[in-house]
């Protein structure tokens, strides 16, 4: 009985290790293998208000791609939107609910300006939550 319990605990520990390694390796894989120009990675944490905001200057007619990677679980119930300075959504008003632990979302803006990128968590998310990778896909 003690041996079975020990094996069970060991399997759990191995699973946790695999998940942790998955986060790092996946982040590296996205960065290296994706064709777009890698701009930045963000470790997105859930704030008290459940909404994390990034203010960012975006270029006109440029396609950006946001890759979400969760180290330990599937990406679920996250709302994404890009708003202007008046806080009206201008593009990328979408829900992310994926069975996988990664998700890609693309967006463009028609005016070079300062925008807000909102990431709204609708479920409790521990620690880093998600790693967000920003890529530049097409530039005119």
């Amino acid at each position, binding site marked *: 009985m003690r041996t079975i319990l020990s094996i069970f605990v060991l399997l759990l520990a191995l699973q946790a290790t695999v998940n942790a390694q998955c986060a790092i390796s996946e982040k590296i894989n996205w960065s290296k293998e994706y064709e777009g120009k890698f701009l930045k990675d963000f470790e997105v944490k859930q704030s008290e208000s459940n909404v994390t905001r990034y203010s960012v200057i975006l270029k006109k007619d440029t396609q950006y791609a946001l890759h979400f990677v969760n180290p330990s679980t599937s990406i679920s119930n996250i709302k994404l939107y890009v708003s202007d300075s008046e806080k009206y959504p201008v593009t990328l008003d979408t829900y992310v609910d994926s069975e996988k632990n990664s998700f890609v979302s693309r967006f463009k803006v028609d005016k070079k300006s300062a925008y807000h990128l909102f990431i709204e968590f609708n479920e409790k998310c521990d620690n*880093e939550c998600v790693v967000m990778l920003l890529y530049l896909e097409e530039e005119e």
Partner: protein
Amino acid sequence: MNNSIDNIFRDKVAELDSIPKEVEWTPEKGWASYQQANNHKAKPLRRFILTATSTAAAIALIVALAVNSNIFAPEVIALQNQTDSITEQQLPNGSRVWLNKNSSIAYSVRKSGEFTMDIDGEVYLETAGTAKAPYTLRAGNAIISIKSQAALNVRAYPNDYDIDITVTNGSVKVADNILGQGLSLLVTKGNYCSVSRTNSLVYATLNNNPNYLAWKTGEITFDNTPMATVTQVLRSFYGQDIEIADDSIAYIRFTGTYTNLSLDSILAAIEDKTAIKATRLHNKVIISK
């Protein structure tokens, strides 16, 4: 030539003994008529224009020479910290600045109060009172504008990919010289802004790094922090190459607050609280299980 003709004419007039009675002519009338015919006397308007143009040209020449030789440019004062400790300096406008190791600034204050500072390395700046004129800080391609009282940390080491601006008090505007100065992000207290040196990316968000002022305060805090971040902080603070031997260690969490301790003391505390070993190998610290 004209003068000699005048003289000949004067001599000829002087030689005349008398003038016929029927002629209503006098030497004065003749002289006036001669001058009018030859436009000898400059018109007042023409003379005024000539004087004004000459004066303006002379002034323009003096101004151009002065600007070219930087006579009107304010004095630029440079400070450099090449010591192993931080330095603090009070500036002529009452602001206070702290310089981290291997950091330098060059600043100037105009009579209007306009303050300009170039930053290389890491500095913490506390501006004094309400500024008479805007403060402009330049760090790499980042341009920071301050219009009211503020305190901020600027990290801009030439080898870092990004320039990080963390606002402790007040608010600042951050623009990227490459993206265009017309566009800027407002960064308020408790937030930080990152300006990429190469990727034309400027973003601002809530500051989650409690150790951004560790270089100034000597205090390092870890609150359930993953080991990947712990080693990053220690690497930056102590300038020591630290390597994680196994990816699985990266997510092991660590908590503790340390003030003015040596790296060895903190590594000993990590070993004590976790199942991690820190080994010095050549000039590296290897973190393993």
